[in-house]
């Protein structure tokens, strides 16, 4: 269950972090169009998995754990996020 990259987390009990690969769950996945993005950060606030990352001056989707719920796409007021079928976009890994 525990992948090597989770070992870096410090925990006061246990040996590491329990984590499952929720990125596997997606049927559709979000794609963020940086041109349309107004950098408002709403997607960052509302993603339940916290997989929208704030970089210096833009936001980026981390697909490792994204469950494909579609909240980010619905809440984005600028239409910058679209849900597409998993694997159909060059942005999305997996």
């Amino acid at each position: 269950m525990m992948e090597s990259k989770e070992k870096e987390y410090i925990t006061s009990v246990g040996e590491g972090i329990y984590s499952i690969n929720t990125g596997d769950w997606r049927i559709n996945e979000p794609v963020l169009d940086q041109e349309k993005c107004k950098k408002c950060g709403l997607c960052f606030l509302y993603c339940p998995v916290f997989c929208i990352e704030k970089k210096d001056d833009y936001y980026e989707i981390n697909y490792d754990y994204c469950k494909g719920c579609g909240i980010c796409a619905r809440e984005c007021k600028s239409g910058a996020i679209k849900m597409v079928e998993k694997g159909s976009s060059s942005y999305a890994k997996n």
Partner: protein
Amino acid sequence: MKYRDILMEQEDLVSPGISACQGCGAELCLRTALRVLGKNTVVAIPPGCLAGAGVVGWNYDNGLKIPVHITLLDNTASFLAGVKELYDYLDEDVQVVAIAGDGATADCGFQSLSGAAERGHNIIYICYDNEGYMNTGFQRSGTTTKGSHTSTTPVGSLIKGKAQHKKDMPMIMAMHNAAYVATLNPAYMKDFVSKLKKAMSVKEGLSYLHVCSPCPTGWRFNSDLSIEVARKAVKTNFFPLYEYENNSFKLKKVANPEPVSNFLKLSKKFKHLDEKDIEEIQAHVDEKYNNLVNLAGENIN
């Protein structure tokens, strides 16, 4: 510090991959709350969706990056009261926080919560209210809204969903004279963060935070609608945002509240309701809201 900066600068203290459903309101509330609460926190999570999703860990691995206990369904508040007493005895200032579902709060865990509030232990008790025992298959709880179709309140020729109104937990906790009581909603993040900060500043007595936590799987709406459902709960006065401290209430007023049907129609658990049922829920919502208006007096903004 602006609330967004608080959220952006703080580390996510939850495991990156927990098995809460797609679009789960409770997962968003958990991650956001812990970002605000920070590392100096000991958490207890009783059985429920978040415990089942792996937040309490598995085998030798932890589900949070800070200490977390899985308590019993009925003893979360008394367990944490003991933990807090120990830290006080050791003279260590540690935040002791419960993150519990509505079943472990309003039903099974109520007597221990009531006792801890009455004795005034300095803990923060957060209830994520998804209106039922969702983790075990959507059974009704005390906080399930009247008319909800759940697995134990089915819809048929004899009954039409739950027969009773929702148990009003935040008001019950205010009537305990808890040090601080507030209702929080994930669609209103600024308010959400400021109420958590307020609870953190309370150094005497219990803080009770009641969080509206839409559940796509149990309420039956598409997962992308979670925030919209939470938002409609406030805009229709179904879930008013208010605070209680020092014997006084403070209410956030919604300009031009929408009819409660705008909230109900988003979830399929209400789809069988007819006009009369909806009118009855509307009357209940209005009565509760007017009561709050009276209690808040001049403290309405």
